[in-house]
């Protein structure tokens, strides 16, 4: 019997020849651990200094502000200061500080810097959407409240998960993004369709996709109940990696043909139209056409689902030559400085300004109400990750989730519309 990519990575990380689903392992990695100022001190970091305790390797800690950005709220100044003081005490080198101007969404910085290595485990202190890094062929997981425990021990435990193989074929409509494919598959699986499992994304659709699109798809794994997502590294993967780091010494892994998958599920996304997720349930995925005409007054394009350069250009295609409705604020937040620079080079950034959008510094930003927050009664169309009540502020505000083309077209119209006219025949 062959092994899945996840089983091979976990076997290597635990020093075993083979592992099987259900095995409990102690695993290590050479990858660094990202922590973020908005949450680090709540995840046990404060205990390390309080106990006068030593962490396993201070040079392996990266401090990335992916959530506070330039906000004045959310205790930003105090949290930033507290983490810097903590870092100085435990010995994290100054060059490991990724603060404003250099930082972006933690998961996106981690894959741009290739801190998550193909063939290894990658443990991040914050953010379950770190499944993003599975697109590099890493077993990527958040440590959450266990972050400080990992920093003390340098060892993490895993229960080897089952792998569900997804085979995706077909070509979605031009106004879709990879996010729509991910939402469609979530809708088919249901919120409990993959609990605790690994989603292994494969098939011709994935093979043809660029890395940004692959990261976006992997970012949403937890909404199916899956632990994380992974893809088998190919030439596209290794080109992204090789452009950024020295690849000698890497040992990328791939699944064997005869590996033991818990299920192999096929999805044909040919001609798929944009998806929409109405509030308040994250797992109720609908066709956009069922929600046309709903009045909106706020828009957001960003997050690790749609804050990539391909998303900026996707939105610009709709916005070019148009301005958004006067009663609407459209916040477009590039995920990282690389994305912002790319949007400047492609002309998308100028289009956003001409369309009268607001472009904050790269970060999660509006995703969790850290800038242009919502208040009671606001209705937002957003390419964010989540839509539960109060996510962006305002207990009775509403968040509809959709791709950047839908957001942009809806902000022009002042109501939810189908963006296909901007793509048809062009």
């Amino acid at each position, binding site marked *: 019997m062959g092994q899945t990519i996840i089983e091979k990575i976990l076997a290597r990380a635990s020093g075993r020849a083979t592992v099987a689903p259900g095995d*409990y392992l102690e695993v290590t990695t050479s990858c660094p651990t990202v922590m973020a100022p908005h949450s680090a001190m*709540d*995840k*046990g970091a404060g*205990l390390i200094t309080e*106990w*006068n*305790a*030593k962490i396993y390797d201070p040079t392996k800690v990266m401090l990335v502000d992916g959530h506070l950005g330039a906000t004045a*709220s*959310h*205790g930003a100044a105090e949290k930033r200061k507290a983490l810097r003081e903590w870092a100085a*005490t*435990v010995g994290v080198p100054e060059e490991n500080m990724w603060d404003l101007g250099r930082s972006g969404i933690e998961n996106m910085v981690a894959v741009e810097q290739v801190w998550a290595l193909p063939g290894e485990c990658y443990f991040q202190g914050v*953010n*379950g959407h770190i499944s993003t890094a599975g697109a590099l062929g890493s077993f990527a997981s*958040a440590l*959450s*409240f*266990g972050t*400080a*425990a990992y920093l*003390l*021990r340098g060892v993490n*435990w895993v229960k080897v*998960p089952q792998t569900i193989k997804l085979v995706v074929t077909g070509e979605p409509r031009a106004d879709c993004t990879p996010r729509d494919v991910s939402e469609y598959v979530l809708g088919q699986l249901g*919120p*409990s369709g993959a*609990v*605790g499992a690994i989603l292994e994304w494969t098939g011709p659709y994935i093979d043809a996709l660029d890395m940004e699109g692959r990261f976006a798809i992997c970012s949403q794994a*937890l*909404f199916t*109940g899956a*632990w994380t997502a992974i893809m088998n590294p190919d030439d596209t993967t290794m080109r992204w990696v090789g452009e950024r780091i020295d690849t000698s010494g890497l040992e990328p892994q791939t699944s064997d043909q005869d590996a033991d998958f818990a299920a192999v599920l096929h999805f044909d996304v040919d001609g798929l139209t944009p998806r929409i997720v109405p509030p*308040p*349930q*994250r*797992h109720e995925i609908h066709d956009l056409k069922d929600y046309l005409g709903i009045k909106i007054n706020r828009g957001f394009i960003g997050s690790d689902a749609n804050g990539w350069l391909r998303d900026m250009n996707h939105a610009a295609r709709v916005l070019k030559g148009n301005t958004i409705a006067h009663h609407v604020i459209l916040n477009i937040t590039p995920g990282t400085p690389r994305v912002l620079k790319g949007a400047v080079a492609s002309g998308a950034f100028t289009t956003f300004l001409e369309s009268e959008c607001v472009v904050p510094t790269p970060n999660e930003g509006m995703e*969790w*109400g850290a800038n242009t927050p919502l208040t009671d009664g606001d209705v937002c169309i957003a390419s964010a990750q*989540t839509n*539960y*009540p*109060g*996510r962006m*502020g305002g*207990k009775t505000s509403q968040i509809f989730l959709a791709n950047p083309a839908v957001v942009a077209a809806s902000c022009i119209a002042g109501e939810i519309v189908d963006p296909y006219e901007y793509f048809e025949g062009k």
Partner: protein
Amino acid sequence: MRGNAWKFSGILDVDWEICSYLLVRQLADKGPVTEEMLGEHCLVNVDPDFPKKVRKGDFVVAGPNMGYGHDHDHASMALKGAGVAAVLCENSAPYFLRNSIDHGLPVIELPGIMAAVDTGDDLEVDLRAGKVVNHSRPGHELTFTPLPDFLLDVLDAGGIYPMLKPRYEGSAGR
């Protein structure tokens, strides 16, 4: 452990049904957030009176994908703060399970639990033996594979940090 069951159906998102994330953020703006503070708001979006009705040592019984959504650990704190002794569920979102154990709250994945238990039932749970006895339904007993010893040790210590403290305190020699 012995207590009464509180059964909840449907998807329970850590950030809404179990404990509103907006509320956590608002509390955090005022100072440190404790388990007791969050316990007063535990599951109120499903049953507004739950924090008043639940007694220390009771159990929450839930369906599949308990603790759906983000890896936010405040939901585990809220349940613990409300006095919940353990969560028994069909299965659990992996981050909710890990965060709960690290906070010292047992989460037991036990297919069939929803059919075997009603709200108000008198349950006895043995984590090491892997056994749930429903005293309200005589003869009704469910078994499960116990967590491995190293995780039971975390639960016995009351969480990962109480367990690690004696081992690591003073190790930096600063």
